[in-house]
Protein backbone atom coordinates (compact mmCIF):
# COMPACT_ATOMS: atom_id res chain seq x y z
CA UNK A 1 0.00 0.00 0.00
CA UNK A 2 2.76 2.38 1.02
CA UNK A 3 4.70 1.46 -2.08
CA UNK A 4 1.65 2.19 -4.20
CA UNK A 5 1.16 5.55 -2.58
CA UNK A 6 4.73 6.57 -3.07
CA UNK A 7 4.38 5.43 -6.66
CA UNK A 8 1.38 7.70 -7.09
CA UNK A 9 3.27 10.53 -5.43
CA UNK A 10 6.19 10.06 -7.78
CA UNK A 11 3.83 10.03 -10.71
CA UNK A 12 2.33 13.38 -9.69
CA UNK A 13 5.74 14.85 -8.91
CA UNK A 14 6.81 13.76 -12.34
CA UNK A 15 3.74 15.32 -13.88
CA UNK A 16 4.43 18.58 -12.09
CA UNK A 17 7.90 18.58 -13.57
CA UNK A 18 6.81 17.64 -17.05
CA UNK A 19 3.70 19.81 -17.36
CA UNK A 20 5.54 23.13 -17.66
CA UNK A 21 7.39 21.68 -20.63
CA UNK A 22 4.18 21.62 -22.62
CA UNK A 23 3.93 25.29 -22.03
CA UNK A 24 0.88 27.38 -21.30
CA UNK A 25 -1.21 26.11 -24.19
CA UNK A 26 -2.46 22.88 -22.60
CA UNK A 27 -3.24 24.67 -19.37
CA UNK A 28 -5.08 27.45 -21.18
CA UNK A 29 -7.06 24.85 -23.11
CA UNK A 30 -8.12 23.11 -19.90
CA UNK A 31 -9.14 26.46 -18.45
CA UNK A 32 -11.13 27.26 -21.55
CA UNK A 33 -13.30 24.17 -21.13
CA UNK A 34 -15.28 25.65 -18.28
CA UNK A 35 -18.39 26.29 -20.30
CA UNK A 36 -20.37 23.73 -22.24
CA UNK A 37 -19.84 25.68 -25.45
CA UNK A 38 -16.06 25.55 -25.05
CA UNK A 39 -16.00 21.95 -23.89
CA UNK A 40 -17.96 20.57 -26.82
CA UNK A 41 -15.55 22.26 -29.21
CA UNK A 42 -12.71 20.14 -27.89
CA UNK A 43 -14.64 17.11 -26.73
CA UNK A 44 -17.95 16.82 -28.52
CA UNK A 45 -20.56 14.94 -26.51
CA UNK A 46 -18.88 15.71 -23.20
CA UNK A 47 -21.59 17.33 -21.07
CA UNK A 48 -19.57 17.62 -17.84
CA UNK A 49 -19.89 21.43 -17.67
CA UNK A 50 -23.67 21.13 -17.97
CA UNK A 51 -23.92 18.59 -15.18
CA UNK A 52 -21.59 20.65 -13.01
CA UNK A 53 -23.90 23.59 -13.57
CA UNK A 54 -26.98 21.50 -12.79
CA UNK A 55 -25.40 20.47 -9.51
CA UNK A 56 -24.33 23.98 -8.52
CA UNK A 57 -27.74 25.56 -7.82
CA UNK A 58 -27.33 27.89 -10.82
CA UNK A 59 -30.71 29.10 -11.99
CA UNK A 60 -31.57 28.19 -15.58
CA UNK A 61 -34.56 29.08 -17.69
CA UNK A 62 -37.86 27.33 -17.12
CA UNK A 63 -41.37 27.94 -18.38
CA UNK A 64 -42.63 26.93 -14.92
CA UNK A 65 -42.95 30.22 -13.11
CA UNK A 66 -42.20 30.33 -9.40
CA UNK A 67 -39.60 30.72 -6.73
CA UNK A 68 -36.33 28.89 -7.57
CA UNK A 69 -38.05 26.74 -10.22
CA UNK A 70 -35.02 27.25 -12.48
CA UNK A 71 -32.72 25.55 -9.95
CA UNK A 72 -32.19 21.88 -10.78
CA UNK A 73 -30.37 20.75 -7.62
CA UNK A 74 -29.92 22.67 -4.36
CA UNK A 75 -27.43 21.45 -1.76
CA UNK A 76 -28.41 23.52 1.30
CA UNK A 77 -31.28 21.16 2.06
CA UNK A 78 -28.92 18.30 2.88
CA UNK A 79 -26.86 20.53 5.20
CA UNK A 80 -30.05 21.60 6.96
CA UNK A 81 -31.23 18.00 7.23
CA UNK A 82 -27.93 16.90 8.80
CA UNK A 83 -28.00 19.79 11.28
CA UNK A 84 -31.65 19.46 12.25
CA UNK A 85 -31.88 15.68 12.39
CA UNK A 86 -28.43 15.41 13.93
CA UNK A 87 -26.92 17.66 16.61
CA UNK A 88 -29.89 20.01 17.01
CA UNK A 89 -32.38 17.26 17.77
CA UNK A 90 -29.97 15.07 19.72
CA UNK A 91 -28.09 17.58 21.87
CA UNK A 92 -30.98 20.06 22.00
CA UNK A 93 -33.28 17.38 23.33
CA UNK A 94 -30.82 16.15 25.94
CA UNK A 95 -30.06 19.72 27.05
CA UNK A 96 -33.75 20.33 27.77
CA UNK A 97 -33.93 17.08 29.73
CA UNK A 98 -30.72 18.00 31.57
CA UNK A 99 -32.13 21.40 32.50
CA UNK A 100 -35.30 19.86 33.94
CA UNK A 101 -33.23 17.34 35.89
CA UNK A 102 -30.97 20.12 37.20
CA UNK A 103 -34.00 22.09 38.38
CA UNK A 104 -35.34 18.99 40.11
CA UNK A 105 -31.98 18.38 41.81
CA UNK A 106 -31.79 22.03 42.88
CA UNK A 107 -35.28 21.83 44.37
CA UNK A 108 -34.43 18.63 46.23
CA UNK A 109 -31.16 20.05 47.56
CA UNK A 110 -32.04 23.69 48.23
CA UNK A 111 -35.84 23.67 48.53
CA UNK A 112 -37.93 26.77 47.93
CA UNK A 113 -36.61 30.23 48.78
CA UNK A 114 -38.75 31.16 51.75
CA UNK A 115 -39.10 34.23 53.94
CA UNK A 116 -36.60 34.91 56.72
CA UNK A 117 -38.97 36.87 58.91
CA UNK A 118 -42.58 35.93 59.64
CA UNK A 119 -45.18 37.50 57.32
CA UNK A 120 -46.71 40.69 58.69
CA UNK A 121 -50.14 40.03 57.29
CA UNK A 122 -50.01 43.46 55.68
CA UNK A 123 -50.29 43.22 51.90
CA UNK A 124 -48.72 45.60 49.41
CA UNK A 125 -49.57 45.90 45.75
CA UNK A 126 -46.78 44.40 43.64
CA UNK A 127 -48.32 44.25 40.16
CA UNK A 128 -51.20 46.22 38.64
CA UNK A 129 -53.95 44.43 36.73
CA UNK A 130 -52.49 45.65 33.42
CA UNK A 131 -49.02 44.41 34.36
CA UNK A 132 -50.41 41.00 35.24
CA UNK A 133 -52.41 40.78 32.01
CA UNK A 134 -49.29 41.76 30.04
CA UNK A 135 -47.26 39.09 31.84
CA UNK A 136 -49.80 36.30 31.47
CA UNK A 137 -50.58 37.08 27.82
CA UNK A 138 -46.90 36.60 27.12
CA UNK A 139 -46.49 33.63 29.47
CA UNK A 140 -49.49 31.69 28.13
CA UNK A 141 -48.60 32.29 24.49
CA UNK A 142 -45.00 31.28 25.30
CA UNK A 143 -46.17 28.00 26.82
CA UNK A 144 -48.38 27.25 23.80
CA UNK A 145 -45.40 27.92 21.51
CA UNK A 146 -43.04 25.86 23.64
CA UNK A 147 -45.30 22.82 23.82
CA UNK A 148 -46.25 22.93 20.13
CA UNK A 149 -42.63 23.57 19.11
CA UNK A 150 -41.34 20.66 21.18
CA UNK A 151 -44.08 18.46 19.69
CA UNK A 152 -42.98 19.33 16.16
CA UNK A 153 -39.28 18.77 16.87
CA UNK A 154 -39.31 15.75 19.18
CA UNK A 155 -42.81 14.30 18.77
CA UNK A 156 -41.69 12.04 15.93
CA UNK A 157 -39.22 10.36 18.28
CA UNK A 158 -41.19 10.42 21.54
CA UNK A 159 -44.95 10.64 20.92
CA UNK A 160 -45.33 9.00 17.53
CA UNK A 161 -44.14 5.54 18.63
CA UNK A 162 -46.57 5.70 21.55
CA UNK A 163 -49.77 7.23 20.14
CA UNK A 164 -49.47 6.18 16.49
CA UNK A 165 -49.51 8.00 13.15
CA UNK A 166 -53.17 9.07 13.01
CA UNK A 167 -53.39 10.65 16.45
CA UNK A 168 -49.92 12.16 16.26
CA UNK A 169 -50.54 13.76 12.86
CA UNK A 170 -53.71 15.33 14.30
CA UNK A 171 -51.70 16.62 17.25
CA UNK A 172 -48.91 17.88 14.99
CA UNK A 173 -51.39 19.64 12.71
CA UNK A 174 -52.88 21.34 15.77
CA UNK A 175 -49.38 22.22 16.98
CA UNK A 176 -48.39 23.72 13.65
CA UNK A 177 -51.55 25.81 13.42
CA UNK A 178 -51.27 27.00 17.03
CA UNK A 179 -47.57 27.77 16.58
CA UNK A 180 -48.22 29.80 13.42
CA UNK A 181 -51.09 31.82 14.86
CA UNK A 182 -49.91 32.27 18.45
CA UNK A 183 -46.43 33.35 17.29
CA UNK A 184 -47.49 36.85 16.18
CA UNK A 185 -49.62 37.21 19.36
CA UNK A 186 -46.51 36.37 21.37
CA UNK A 187 -44.53 39.03 19.52
CA UNK A 188 -47.21 41.63 20.25
CA UNK A 189 -47.38 40.65 23.92
CA UNK A 190 -43.57 40.95 24.21
CA UNK A 191 -43.71 44.50 22.86
CA UNK A 192 -46.45 45.49 25.35
CA UNK A 193 -44.62 43.75 28.22
CA UNK A 194 -41.28 45.37 27.44
CA UNK A 195 -42.78 48.85 27.19
CA UNK A 196 -44.52 48.38 30.54
CA UNK A 197 -41.64 46.80 32.44
CA UNK A 198 -38.51 48.36 30.94
CA UNK A 199 -38.28 51.17 33.51
CA UNK A 200 -37.97 48.86 36.51
CA UNK A 201 -35.56 46.58 34.64
CA UNK A 202 -33.05 49.32 33.90
CA UNK A 203 -29.64 48.17 35.24
CA UNK A 204 -28.49 49.82 38.49
CA UNK A 205 -25.17 49.78 40.34
CA UNK A 206 -26.58 47.65 43.17
CA UNK A 207 -27.41 44.92 40.64
CA UNK A 208 -23.69 44.10 40.51
CA UNK A 209 -23.60 43.53 44.27
CA UNK A 210 -26.62 41.29 43.94
CA UNK A 211 -24.92 39.30 41.16
CA UNK A 212 -21.64 38.96 43.07
CA UNK A 213 -23.56 37.54 46.02
CA UNK A 214 -25.62 35.30 43.73
CA UNK A 215 -28.75 36.85 45.12
CA UNK A 216 -28.01 35.12 48.39
CA UNK A 217 -29.79 32.06 47.00
CA UNK A 218 -27.19 29.66 48.39
CA UNK A 219 -25.98 31.62 51.41
CA UNK A 220 -29.44 32.55 52.60
CA UNK A 221 -28.43 36.17 52.88
CA UNK A 222 -31.05 38.82 52.05
CA UNK A 223 -29.54 40.91 49.27
CA UNK A 224 -31.31 44.21 48.56
CA UNK A 225 -32.54 44.97 45.06
CA UNK A 226 -34.88 47.29 43.23
CA UNK A 227 -38.33 46.26 42.10
CA UNK A 228 -36.64 43.47 40.15
CA UNK A 229 -33.37 41.81 41.05
CA UNK A 230 -30.37 41.40 38.75
CA UNK A 231 -31.37 37.84 37.85
CA UNK A 232 -34.79 38.99 36.74
CA UNK A 233 -33.20 41.85 34.81
CA UNK A 234 -30.88 39.52 32.93
CA UNK A 235 -33.86 37.34 32.06
CA UNK A 236 -35.69 40.48 30.92
CA UNK A 237 -32.91 41.71 28.64
CA UNK A 238 -31.42 38.41 27.48
CA UNK A 239 -34.51 36.23 27.48
CA UNK A 240 -37.59 38.33 26.89
CA UNK A 241 -35.92 40.90 24.63
CA UNK A 242 -32.88 39.05 23.24
CA UNK A 243 -34.18 35.56 22.60
CA UNK A 244 -37.64 37.02 21.98
CA UNK A 245 -36.33 39.18 19.14
CA UNK A 246 -34.25 36.37 17.60
CA UNK A 247 -37.00 33.74 17.77
CA UNK A 248 -39.72 36.13 16.58
CA UNK A 249 -37.67 37.45 13.66
CA UNK A 250 -36.66 33.96 12.50
CA UNK A 251 -40.20 32.71 13.09
CA UNK A 252 -41.74 35.40 10.92
CA UNK A 253 -39.44 34.44 8.04
CA UNK A 254 -40.94 30.93 8.11
CA UNK A 255 -44.47 31.96 9.09
CA UNK A 256 -44.96 34.16 6.04
CA UNK A 257 -43.49 32.32 3.07
CA UNK A 258 -45.43 34.60 0.72
CA UNK A 259 -42.62 37.12 0.26
CA UNK A 260 -40.65 34.98 -2.18
CA UNK A 261 -37.91 34.21 0.33
CA UNK A 262 -35.78 31.32 -0.90
CA UNK A 263 -35.30 27.95 0.73
CA UNK A 264 -31.82 28.65 2.10
CA UNK A 265 -33.15 31.74 3.92
CA UNK A 266 -35.98 29.72 5.48
CA UNK A 267 -33.62 26.89 6.46
CA UNK A 268 -31.21 29.32 8.11
CA UNK A 269 -34.19 30.86 9.92
CA UNK A 270 -35.25 27.39 11.02
CA UNK A 271 -31.85 26.56 12.52
CA UNK A 272 -31.68 29.92 14.32
CA UNK A 273 -35.29 29.52 15.47
CA UNK A 274 -34.83 26.03 16.89
CA UNK A 275 -31.61 26.93 18.75
CA UNK A 276 -33.07 30.19 20.12
CA UNK A 277 -36.33 28.43 20.96
CA UNK A 278 -34.67 25.60 22.89
CA UNK A 279 -32.50 28.06 24.78
CA UNK A 280 -35.59 30.14 25.52
CA UNK A 281 -37.46 27.08 26.80
CA UNK A 282 -34.58 26.04 29.06
CA UNK A 283 -34.19 29.53 30.48
CA UNK A 284 -37.94 29.94 30.90
CA UNK A 285 -38.00 26.66 32.81
CA UNK A 286 -35.78 28.23 35.48
CA UNK A 287 -37.98 31.34 35.55
CA UNK A 288 -41.14 29.25 35.85
CA UNK A 289 -39.53 27.24 38.65
CA UNK A 290 -38.42 30.35 40.57
CA UNK A 291 -41.81 31.99 39.96
CA UNK A 292 -43.83 29.05 41.28
CA UNK A 293 -42.57 26.33 43.64
CA UNK A 294 -39.08 27.80 43.86
CA UNK A 295 -40.00 31.00 45.70
CA UNK A 296 -42.69 31.22 48.35
CA UNK A 297 -45.25 33.88 47.46
CA UNK A 298 -43.92 34.64 43.96
CA UNK A 299 -46.73 32.95 42.04
CA UNK A 300 -49.39 34.62 44.22
CA UNK A 301 -47.76 37.98 43.50
CA UNK A 302 -48.24 37.60 39.77
CA UNK A 303 -51.66 35.96 40.11
CA UNK A 304 -53.30 38.33 42.60
CA UNK A 305 -50.98 41.32 42.40
CA UNK A 306 -50.23 41.49 46.14
CA UNK A 307 -47.36 40.36 48.35
CA UNK A 308 -46.80 40.45 52.07
CA UNK A 309 -44.70 43.40 53.24
CA UNK A 310 -42.07 40.99 54.56
CA UNK A 311 -41.87 39.46 51.09
CA UNK A 312 -41.50 42.91 49.53
CA UNK A 313 -38.79 43.92 52.01
CA UNK A 314 -36.80 40.71 51.52
CA UNK A 315 -37.16 40.37 47.74
CA UNK A 316 -37.25 44.01 46.60
CA UNK A 317 -35.96 46.12 49.48
CA UNK A 318 -35.16 49.36 47.65
CA UNK A 319 -38.50 49.30 45.84
CA UNK A 320 -40.33 48.60 49.10
CA UNK A 321 -38.56 51.46 50.89
CA UNK A 322 -39.31 53.85 48.03
CA UNK A 323 -42.98 52.96 48.07
CA UNK A 324 -43.24 53.22 51.85
CA UNK A 325 -41.48 56.55 51.84
CA UNK A 326 -43.83 57.80 49.15
CA UNK A 327 -40.95 58.30 46.70
CA UNK A 328 -42.76 56.24 44.06
CA UNK A 329 -46.30 55.24 43.31
CA UNK A 330 -47.82 51.81 43.66
CA UNK A 331 -48.04 49.78 40.45
CA UNK A 332 -51.68 50.72 39.94
CA UNK A 333 -50.75 54.38 40.19
CA UNK A 334 -51.93 55.15 43.70
CA UNK A 335 -49.48 57.26 45.70
CA UNK A 336 -46.91 55.11 47.47
CA UNK A 337 -47.32 56.70 50.91
CA UNK A 338 -50.98 55.66 50.83
CA UNK A 339 -49.76 52.10 51.04
CA UNK A 340 -49.05 52.40 54.73
CA UNK A 341 -52.52 53.81 55.28
CA UNK A 342 -54.33 51.03 53.44
CA UNK A 343 -51.96 48.33 54.56
CA UNK A 344 -53.82 47.86 57.81
CA UNK A 345 -56.77 46.56 55.82
CA UNK A 346 -55.26 44.02 53.43
CA UNK A 347 -57.36 43.30 50.37
CA UNK A 348 -59.31 40.11 50.55
CA UNK A 349 -58.05 37.85 47.83
CA UNK A 350 -60.16 34.99 46.62
CA UNK A 351 -58.05 31.93 45.97
Amino acid sequence: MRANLSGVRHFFLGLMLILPLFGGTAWAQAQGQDTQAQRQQVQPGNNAPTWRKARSSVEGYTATKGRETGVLIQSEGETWRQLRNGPITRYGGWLVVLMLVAIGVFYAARGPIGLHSPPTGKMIERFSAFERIAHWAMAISFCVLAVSGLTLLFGKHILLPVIGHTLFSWLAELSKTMHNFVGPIFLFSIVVFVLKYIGDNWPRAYDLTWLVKGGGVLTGEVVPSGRFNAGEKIWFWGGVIGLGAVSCASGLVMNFPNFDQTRDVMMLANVVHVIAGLWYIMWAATHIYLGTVGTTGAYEAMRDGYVDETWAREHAQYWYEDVKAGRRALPSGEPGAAASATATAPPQVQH
Partner: protein
Amino acid sequence: MARMKFLCDAERCIECNGCVTACKQENEVPWGVNRRRVVTLNDGVSGEKSISVACMHCSDAPCMAVCPVDCFYRTEEGVVLHDKDMCIGCGYCFYACPFGAPQFPQTGAFGMRGKMDKCTFCAGGPEMDNSKEEFAKYGSNRLAQGKLPACAEMCSTKALLGGDGNVIADIFRDRALKRGKGAEVWGWSTAYGKPDKPQQEAPKGAKS
Protein backbone atom coordinates in the same frame (compact mmCIF):
# COMPACT_ATOMS: atom_id res chain seq x y z
CA MET B 1 -38.45 -6.48 -7.75
CA ALA B 2 -37.81 -3.57 -10.02
CA ARG B 3 -36.35 -0.35 -8.67
CA MET B 4 -38.21 2.48 -10.39
CA LYS B 5 -36.07 5.40 -11.58
CA PHE B 6 -36.22 8.43 -13.82
CA LEU B 7 -33.47 9.27 -16.31
CA CYS B 8 -33.32 12.37 -18.49
CA ASP B 9 -31.08 12.33 -21.52
CA ALA B 10 -29.84 15.90 -21.89
CA GLU B 11 -28.69 15.17 -25.47
CA ARG B 12 -32.27 14.47 -26.47
CA CYS B 13 -34.45 16.80 -24.41
CA ILE B 14 -35.79 19.55 -26.65
CA GLU B 15 -37.63 21.50 -23.93
CA CYS B 16 -41.04 20.85 -25.46
CA ASN B 17 -42.61 20.60 -21.98
CA GLY B 18 -44.65 17.63 -23.21
CA CYS B 19 -43.82 15.77 -19.97
CA VAL B 20 -45.09 18.71 -17.90
CA THR B 21 -48.33 18.81 -19.83
CA ALA B 22 -48.73 15.03 -19.80
CA CYS B 23 -48.33 15.02 -16.01
CA LYS B 24 -50.84 17.81 -15.48
CA GLN B 25 -53.34 16.12 -17.77
CA GLU B 26 -52.88 12.65 -16.35
CA ASN B 27 -52.95 13.58 -12.67
CA GLU B 28 -55.14 16.70 -12.63
CA VAL B 29 -52.67 18.29 -10.22
CA PRO B 30 -53.77 21.14 -7.93
CA TRP B 31 -53.71 24.67 -9.31
CA GLY B 32 -50.29 26.28 -9.02
CA VAL B 33 -48.48 22.97 -8.59
CA ASN B 34 -46.12 21.58 -11.22
CA ARG B 35 -45.00 18.09 -10.39
CA ARG B 36 -42.54 18.17 -13.26
CA ARG B 37 -40.68 21.03 -14.91
CA VAL B 38 -38.11 21.45 -17.65
CA VAL B 39 -35.04 23.59 -16.92
CA THR B 40 -32.76 24.87 -19.65
CA LEU B 41 -29.14 25.67 -18.86
CA ASN B 42 -27.16 28.04 -21.10
CA ASP B 43 -30.46 29.13 -22.58
CA GLY B 44 -30.04 30.74 -25.97
CA VAL B 45 -26.28 30.29 -26.18
CA SER B 46 -24.07 27.58 -27.60
CA GLY B 47 -24.03 24.52 -25.37
CA GLU B 48 -27.70 24.85 -24.38
CA LYS B 49 -29.05 21.75 -22.63
CA SER B 50 -32.49 21.03 -21.20
CA ILE B 51 -33.32 18.66 -18.39
CA SER B 52 -36.72 17.51 -17.19
CA VAL B 53 -36.90 17.21 -13.42
CA ALA B 54 -39.41 15.95 -10.86
CA CYS B 55 -39.30 13.86 -7.70
CA MET B 56 -36.41 11.41 -8.22
CA HIS B 57 -37.71 8.93 -5.62
CA CYS B 58 -34.40 8.94 -3.75
CA SER B 59 -33.05 5.89 -1.94
CA ASP B 60 -32.19 8.00 1.12
CA ALA B 61 -34.98 10.53 0.68
CA PRO B 62 -34.37 13.82 2.56
CA CYS B 63 -38.13 14.60 2.57
CA MET B 64 -38.78 11.36 4.40
CA ALA B 65 -35.96 12.04 6.86
CA VAL B 66 -37.13 15.51 7.90
CA CYS B 67 -40.92 14.99 7.89
CA PRO B 68 -42.05 15.70 11.49
CA VAL B 69 -45.06 13.39 11.19
CA ASP B 70 -43.35 10.61 9.22
CA CYS B 71 -46.00 10.66 6.46
CA PHE B 72 -43.69 9.34 3.71
CA TYR B 73 -43.30 5.72 2.73
CA ARG B 74 -41.48 3.77 0.04
CA THR B 75 -43.16 1.14 -2.10
CA GLU B 76 -41.57 -2.19 -2.90
CA GLU B 77 -40.56 -0.71 -6.25
CA GLY B 78 -38.65 2.14 -4.59
CA VAL B 79 -41.26 4.81 -5.29
CA VAL B 80 -41.41 7.48 -2.56
CA LEU B 81 -45.03 8.30 -1.73
CA HIS B 82 -46.75 10.23 1.06
CA ASP B 83 -50.03 10.22 2.95
CA LYS B 84 -51.85 13.51 2.48
CA ASP B 85 -54.18 12.74 5.38
CA MET B 86 -51.18 12.91 7.73
CA CYS B 87 -49.34 15.82 6.07
CA ILE B 88 -49.48 18.98 8.20
CA GLY B 89 -48.12 21.37 5.55
CA CYS B 90 -45.00 22.46 7.46
CA GLY B 91 -42.84 22.78 4.35
CA TYR B 92 -39.82 20.89 5.72
CA CYS B 93 -39.75 18.44 2.79
CA PHE B 94 -39.71 21.44 0.46
CA TYR B 95 -36.67 22.80 2.33
CA ALA B 96 -34.77 19.52 2.27
CA CYS B 97 -35.46 18.23 -1.26
CA PRO B 98 -32.53 18.83 -3.65
CA PHE B 99 -34.81 18.75 -6.71
CA GLY B 100 -37.54 21.13 -5.56
CA ALA B 101 -40.16 18.40 -5.93
CA PRO B 102 -42.53 18.97 -2.97
CA GLN B 103 -44.94 21.83 -3.49
CA PHE B 104 -47.83 23.26 -1.53
CA PRO B 105 -51.11 24.58 -2.84
CA GLN B 106 -51.87 27.81 -0.99
CA THR B 107 -54.92 27.33 1.22
CA GLY B 108 -55.21 30.68 2.97
CA ALA B 109 -53.81 34.16 3.37
CA PHE B 110 -50.10 34.88 3.91
CA GLY B 111 -48.93 31.82 1.98
CA MET B 112 -50.54 29.31 4.34
CA ARG B 113 -49.58 25.87 3.06
CA GLY B 114 -52.03 23.10 2.28
CA LYS B 115 -51.20 19.41 1.88
CA MET B 116 -47.95 18.76 0.06
CA ASP B 117 -48.17 17.53 -3.52
CA LYS B 118 -45.42 15.91 -5.57
CA CYS B 119 -44.75 13.44 -8.35
CA THR B 120 -45.93 9.94 -7.42
CA PHE B 121 -44.20 8.14 -10.31
CA CYS B 122 -47.86 7.73 -11.39
CA ALA B 123 -48.28 5.32 -8.47
CA GLY B 124 -51.07 7.05 -6.53
CA GLY B 125 -51.09 6.96 -2.76
CA PRO B 126 -52.07 4.84 0.22
CA GLU B 127 -55.74 4.62 -0.79
CA MET B 128 -57.15 1.63 -2.70
CA ASP B 129 -55.55 1.40 -6.16
CA ASN B 130 -57.37 3.46 -8.78
CA SER B 131 -60.13 4.45 -6.37
CA LYS B 132 -61.85 7.82 -6.67
CA GLU B 133 -60.29 8.96 -3.38
CA GLU B 134 -56.81 8.04 -4.58
CA PHE B 135 -57.26 9.92 -7.84
CA ALA B 136 -58.62 13.02 -6.10
CA LYS B 137 -55.62 13.25 -3.77
CA TYR B 138 -52.72 11.87 -5.79
CA GLY B 139 -53.83 11.52 -9.40
CA SER B 140 -53.47 8.52 -11.64
CA ASN B 141 -52.12 5.16 -10.50
CA ARG B 142 -50.69 3.91 -13.78
CA LEU B 143 -48.27 1.52 -12.13
CA ALA B 144 -51.20 -0.45 -10.73
CA GLN B 145 -52.54 -0.67 -14.29
CA GLY B 146 -49.21 -2.06 -15.53
CA LYS B 147 -48.20 1.22 -17.20
CA LEU B 148 -45.24 3.51 -16.69
CA PRO B 149 -45.34 7.23 -15.77
CA ALA B 150 -47.25 9.39 -18.26
CA CYS B 151 -44.44 11.95 -18.62
CA ALA B 152 -41.89 9.42 -19.87
CA GLU B 153 -44.44 7.58 -22.04
CA MET B 154 -45.38 10.90 -23.66
CA CYS B 155 -41.85 12.18 -24.23
CA SER B 156 -41.56 13.00 -27.93
CA THR B 157 -37.82 12.33 -28.20
CA LYS B 158 -37.67 9.61 -25.55
CA ALA B 159 -35.25 11.81 -23.63
CA LEU B 160 -37.14 11.11 -20.43
CA LEU B 161 -37.07 7.48 -19.41
CA GLY B 162 -39.02 6.15 -16.45
CA GLY B 163 -39.15 2.56 -15.27
CA ASP B 164 -37.06 -0.24 -13.86
CA GLY B 165 -33.64 1.24 -13.20
CA ASN B 166 -31.79 -1.69 -14.80
CA VAL B 167 -33.85 -1.55 -17.98
CA ILE B 168 -33.60 2.19 -18.53
CA ALA B 169 -29.89 2.13 -17.69
CA ASP B 170 -29.42 -0.50 -20.43
CA ILE B 171 -31.41 1.58 -22.89
CA PHE B 172 -29.32 4.62 -22.07
CA ARG B 173 -26.05 2.70 -22.28
CA ASP B 174 -26.92 1.29 -25.70
CA ARG B 175 -27.91 4.74 -26.79
CA ALA B 176 -24.68 6.28 -25.55
CA LEU B 177 -22.62 3.57 -27.24
CA LYS B 178 -24.38 3.94 -30.56
CA ARG B 179 -24.30 7.70 -30.27
CA GLY B 180 -20.64 7.54 -29.44
CA LYS B 181 -18.99 10.86 -29.25
CA GLY B 182 -17.34 13.33 -31.49
CA ALA B 183 -18.37 13.42 -35.09
CA GLU B 184 -20.46 10.26 -34.83
CA VAL B 185 -22.99 12.10 -32.73
CA TRP B 186 -23.90 14.20 -35.65
CA GLY B 187 -24.20 11.21 -37.96
CA TRP B 188 -21.00 11.52 -39.97
CA SER B 189 -20.53 7.79 -40.27
CA THR B 190 -24.10 7.43 -41.48
CA ALA B 191 -23.73 10.20 -43.97
CA TYR B 192 -20.16 9.97 -45.17
CA GLY B 193 -18.86 6.52 -44.79
CA LYS B 194 -19.52 2.95 -43.91
CA PRO B 195 -15.97 1.56 -44.04
CA ASP B 196 -17.03 -2.12 -43.95
CA LYS B 197 -19.09 -1.69 -47.15
CA PRO B 198 -17.19 -1.91 -50.45
CA GLN B 199 -16.49 1.34 -52.07
CA GLN B 200 -19.16 2.12 -54.59
CA GLU B 201 -17.49 2.45 -57.93
CA ALA B 202 -18.30 5.05 -60.41
CA PRO B 203 -20.54 3.79 -63.21
CA LYS B 204 -18.53 2.59 -66.14
CA GLY B 205 -19.01 3.30 -69.72
CA ALA B 206 -19.58 6.37 -71.70
CA LYS B 207 -22.07 8.91 -70.57
CA SER B 208 -25.08 9.25 -72.69
